[in-house]
């Protein structure tokens, strides 16, 4: 016992008040964020920074969200299966290393440490390359394989601790008494290393539940886990809903680790505990095994979309009407979508790229032409959106939703009307101004302020760069994800913002107002596309047709609060949404709107200029 060895002495070593203080301070620093997160998950308010009273609201919202349940189910399936596999392998490996001497034993032991030392991201990329190389389809199975590879070494080490402490003579005694090797393993070895096996299992389980990076690389269709889902929710800012999931995850992980710790200390596990644990796992495994049979269906459709960018009720309805099983996975941005397609193993049927990304994907032959004839509802699409500049054939995309980048401001501090980009250069609001952290958006604003169209002219680009550098001292920062939060906490008074986010802010509090600049705004159009290697192309077209139905379109707009180029649907939308300029901007001439394009070669210049602004 270390406690018995340490004595107090007269020198004061180890008694310093400072030492204690620093230690406690460190621990507080470690725990404080978690405590704040847990407390704010019970906040009535939408924002993370202001307390408005206790409420279970976000937990309720969480548990009524089907996609979260699906993510939880995936996480549990992956965690349980990978745990069972890595513990079985780990027990074998531990027995092998502890009990036998063989050529390459030292090497094997060292290899086991690799996943422990290696950064997750490298491990993830390596696994992905392997899966692609051997044409292993990405999905739940690939994630399970990946999780086994990183949790198996940990399980082995924990189990080995117990195996090494088990005298070899116990096995010999059992053999001597007539037992076979297998009987010896079951009756003597396993009961004695059980605490190690169980705590190894709990470690493996919590590692699997928590993993983000490796899962991110190896997940395919229908393998969205809870951490992936959480990450996709961050897109909409840090909401209390996120705090609620995180709280549940923290509680769960802590319980699992406490159990692991407890089991490592105890020599013998009580019978009732064994039974309880066994039943618990049996129930979960049972549920997971049984659940696929309820939803079994040969027809499938795999959608890859941003979270909260498609009404889940519509998916349900589509499934009910057609019997097609729909899987929805979450993407975080265009680049991620591109990366998944380039890997060639993703298996998605519908993706939602922004206009400039459609252009890039088309160039790289990643998209399949869409058969417009099998989409009768295509006729409802506003004609101006059908053959746009980014794909003049109009065969590779069906426009989904559109919006623009304007401004949002706090009318308590800023006098209206806000109708020009100039206000973002206003000295009076120094330190309270924010710009989006995206080069296209930022340079567009600068070009507009200078009064010209953004194109591939180097001199224009440099002028835009110069006024951005001039603006920098006035800025709070460049930020894309937490715009709503920083506005709500009033750390920022005026921000460049996407229309969807502006809609949420203005409807949450009347003090927030839209600033629509007369110089013009940058539009974005998100589109439905079918990847070239989509496994269920026909179903994808059916789904697109389903979404274009005016009634469905209207329902979808009501849900996601983004405009869609569907004139017949507009008649079915409540007036207050239709007249909300953040949802439906007043556009006289659709041909003249500016949308973010792919600049091709010029991208390099743009990036350089952006870097120059950033580092200034």
């Amino acid at each position, binding site marked *: 016992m270390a406690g018995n060895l340490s004595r107090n002495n007269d020198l004061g070593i180890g008694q310093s008040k400072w030492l204690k203080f620093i230690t406690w301070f460190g621990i507080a620093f470690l725990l404080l964020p978690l405590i704040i997160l847990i407390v704010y998950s019970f906040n009535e308010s939408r924002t993370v920074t202001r307390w408005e009273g206790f409420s279970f609201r976000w937990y309720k919202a969480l548990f009524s969200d089907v996609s979260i349940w699906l993510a939880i189910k995936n996480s549990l399936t992956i965690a349980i299966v990978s745990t069972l596999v890595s513990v079985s392998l780990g027990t074998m490996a531990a027995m092998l290393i502890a009990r036998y001497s063989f050529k390459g034993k030292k090497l094997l032991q060292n290899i086991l440490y690799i996943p422990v030392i290696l950064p997750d991201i490298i491990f993830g990329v390596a696994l992905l390359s392997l899966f692609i190389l051997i044409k292993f389809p990405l999905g739940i199975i690939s994630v399970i394989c990946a999780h086994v590879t990183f949790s198996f070494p940990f399980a082995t080490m924990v189990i080995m601790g117990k195996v090494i402490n088990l005298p070899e003579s116990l096995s010999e*005694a059992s053999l001597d*008494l007539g037992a*076979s090797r297998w009987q010896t393993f079951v009756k003597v070895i396993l009961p004695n290393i059980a605490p190690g096996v169980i705590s190894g299992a709990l470690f493996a389980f919590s590692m699997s539940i928590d993993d983000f990076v490796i899962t991110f690389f190896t997940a395919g269709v229908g393998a969205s886990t809870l951490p992936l889902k959480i990450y996709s929710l961050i897109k909409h800012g840090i909401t209390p809903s996120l705090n609620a999931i995180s709280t549940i995850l923290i509680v769960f992980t802590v319980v699992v680790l406490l159990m692991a710790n407890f089991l490592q200390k105890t020599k013998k596990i009580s019978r009732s505990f064994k039974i309880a644990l066994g039943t618990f796992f049996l129930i979960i495994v049972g549920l997971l095994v049984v659940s696929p049979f309820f939803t079994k269906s040969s027809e499938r459709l795999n959608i890859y979309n941003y979270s909260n960018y498609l009404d889940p009720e519509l998916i349900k309805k589509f499934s009910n009407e057609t019997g097609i099983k729909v899987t929805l996975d979450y993407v975080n941005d265009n680049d991620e979508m591109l990366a998944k397609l380039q890997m060639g193993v993703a298996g998605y049927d519908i993706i939602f790229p922004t206009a400039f990304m459609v252009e890039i994907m088309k160039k790289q032959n990643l998209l399949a032409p869409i058969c417009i004839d099998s989409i009768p509802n295509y006729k409802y699409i506003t004609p101006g959106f059908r053959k746009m500049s980014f794909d003049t054939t109009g065969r590779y995309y069906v426009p989904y939703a559109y919006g623009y980048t304007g401004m949002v401001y706090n009318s308590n501090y800023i006098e209206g009307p806000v109708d020009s980009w100039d206000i973002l250069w206003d000295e009076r609001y120094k330190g309270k101004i924010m710009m989006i952290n995206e080069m296209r958006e930022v340079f567009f604003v600068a070009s507009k302020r200078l009064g010209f169209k953004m194109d591939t002219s180097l001199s224009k680009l440099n002028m835009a760069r110069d006024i951005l550098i001039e603006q920098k001292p006035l800025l709070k920062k460049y930020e894309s994800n937490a715009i709503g939060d920083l506005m709500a906490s009033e750390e920022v008074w005026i921000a460049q913002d996407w229309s969807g986010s502006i809609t949420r802010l203005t409807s949450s509090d009347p003090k927030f107002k839209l600033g629509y600049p007369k110089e013009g705004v940058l539009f974005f159009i998100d589109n439905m596309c079918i990847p070239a290697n989509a496994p269920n192309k026909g179903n994808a077209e059916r789904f697109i047709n389903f979404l274009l139905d005016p009634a469905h379109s209207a329902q979808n707009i009501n849900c996601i609060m983004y405009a869609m180029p569907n004139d017949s649907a507009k008649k079915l939308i409540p007036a207050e949404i239709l007249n909300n300029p953040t949802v439906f901007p007043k556009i006289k001439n659709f041909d003249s709107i500016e949308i973010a394009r792919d600049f091709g070669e010029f991208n390099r210049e743009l990036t350089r200029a952006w870097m120059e602004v950033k580092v200034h």
Partner: protein
Amino acid sequence: MLELKNLSKFYGNVKAVNQVNLTISKGEFFCLLGPSGCGKTTILRMVAGFEKVTEGNIYLEGKDITNDAPNNRDVNTVFQNYALFPNLSVWENIAYGLKIRKITKDECNRRVEDVVRLTGLSGFEKRMPSKLSGGQQQRVALARALVNRPSILLLDEPLSALDKKIAEQTRNELSELQRKVGITFIFVTHNQTEALALADRIAVMKDGIIEHCDQPKEIYEKPRTHFVADFIGSMNFFECTIKASEDKATLLEIPEIGDVILTGQNKQEAGKTVQFCVRPERMKISMLQPAEYENCIKGVIRQKTYLGEITKFVVELAGNRQISIMAQNYLLKLSNEFYDIGEEVNIIWSKTSGEIIHV
């Protein structure tokens, strides 16, 4: 009956067991005795089947079991560290072998009860091994093996982990137990007292070889090699030459010390260099002249150690050689005060005592 034929076990260059031949008969209490590292455990483990045989064969009741798996041999082991299953109670430990052999519940209970009574473990059946004393653990290990009624029971230093008093008590019980159950015991020990007390026959081992195998009395009285003589009890050795020898008496010349006579031996080859050895307790210190049937040499007392029962003297002979002499204290009582360090004394022993060892 167990037979070892030319049994060898090599670990690389180490000849742990080298060409051992042994026959152990049914019901015998057989002892393997030797210093640590001489290969006793290795022999036992080969008989049990835990160690692959390098060369030679093992026959049990005439059947070759050299390559049988340990769980197919009618042999059970009591391990040095007992190797009780920590997850099972005393009762479950003992019943383990019977349960594996699918013996009926009634029969199993009856047999476990019998051996529990036999080994004096009644009342401890429900305890876990970690809650038992060393002596009790040892009994459980014994009971667990005995309950299977093997042809042979192998015991690897079963008493070495116990303290002296308990070891002695257990030793007596073990001897009694063996007579009761009539199972062949092969008992490994490095403790000569245990071996002498328990065994019907002892095999003394050194460096993987059996030096001498015989009954305890023969081993003690007529050791065949220097090693055996030295290892068992203590012994004084004299390098000497055989001056003359006839049927019942031999005259030996010990250089610088003088001539001694040994009677009761077979005729020896004259002129040969041999070792003459006498046990310290057979010699006595005296001021008197020897009787006609005694040998006598001179020496100076260098050390005197009182050991309770006996007093041990170290006496220096001519040419700086030292020998030890043990005197029973009840005989010494008065004379104890007579002989003191530095005194020159006569060392006397009977001409019938001593042994010749050929080198």
